[in-house]
């Protein structure tokens, strides 16, 4: 393996319980982004969707606070991340997906499109 193991592109999506207050939601986001940073990953982009209604009730709740985090990390970080998320009971559902190069290009293009529309409007 290369000395500095190759960084893989990942995308983490979390759904928090809707009962969370605003600043709990904020520092929960910070907790996970810091966790990734000090385990040798870099945050590419984070995006908080906030309160959204779920398509079906999870744990008797019909709404959830969504949070999407795109990051680069060595491959063994996910196992640690998984333990953290399972232990944290404010998270009702989580998913980590691997991004191939087309996905990374897609996200980049989407962000640049948003930026251009923002400063255009």
């Amino acid at each position, binding site marked *: 393996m290369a000395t500095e193991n190759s960084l893989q592109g990942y995308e983490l999506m979390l759904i928090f319980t809707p009962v969370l207050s605003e600043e709990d939601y904020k520092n929960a986001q910070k907790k996970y982004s810091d966790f990734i940073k000090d385990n040798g990953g870099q945050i590419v982009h984070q995006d908080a969707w906030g309160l959204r209604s779920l398509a079906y009730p999870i744990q008797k709740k019909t709404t*959830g606070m969504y949070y999407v985090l795109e990051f680069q990390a060595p491959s063994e970080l996910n196992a640690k991340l998984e333990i953290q998320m399972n232990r944290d009971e404010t998270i009702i559902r989580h*998913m980590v997906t691997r991004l191939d190069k087309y996905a990374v290009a*897609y996200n980049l293009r989407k962000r640049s499109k948003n930026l251009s529309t923002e400063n255009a409007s």
Partner: protein
Amino acid sequence: MAKQNEIKFLTTQRIEKRPKKFCRFKKMGIRYIDYKDAEFLKRFLNEQGKMLPRRISGNSLKYQRKVSQAIKKARQMAILPYVTDLLK
């Protein structure tokens, strides 16, 4: 009783040729299907929220698999329902 081939119609019977189906991903060069984009994925679901088969959606095999993977991820993250009525 007039035999089948003796029946003459006034106007010639024209079976309209339906347009050739194409894979929208190949044509538009889309390489990645985002599971977070519910509006786009809904085009591949019927009213009950079930996935459309390839013969109806017209996708090529490679992209039909990517679409089904994306839909399953979206369902897992409660962006799309597993089953519903009047999805549209």
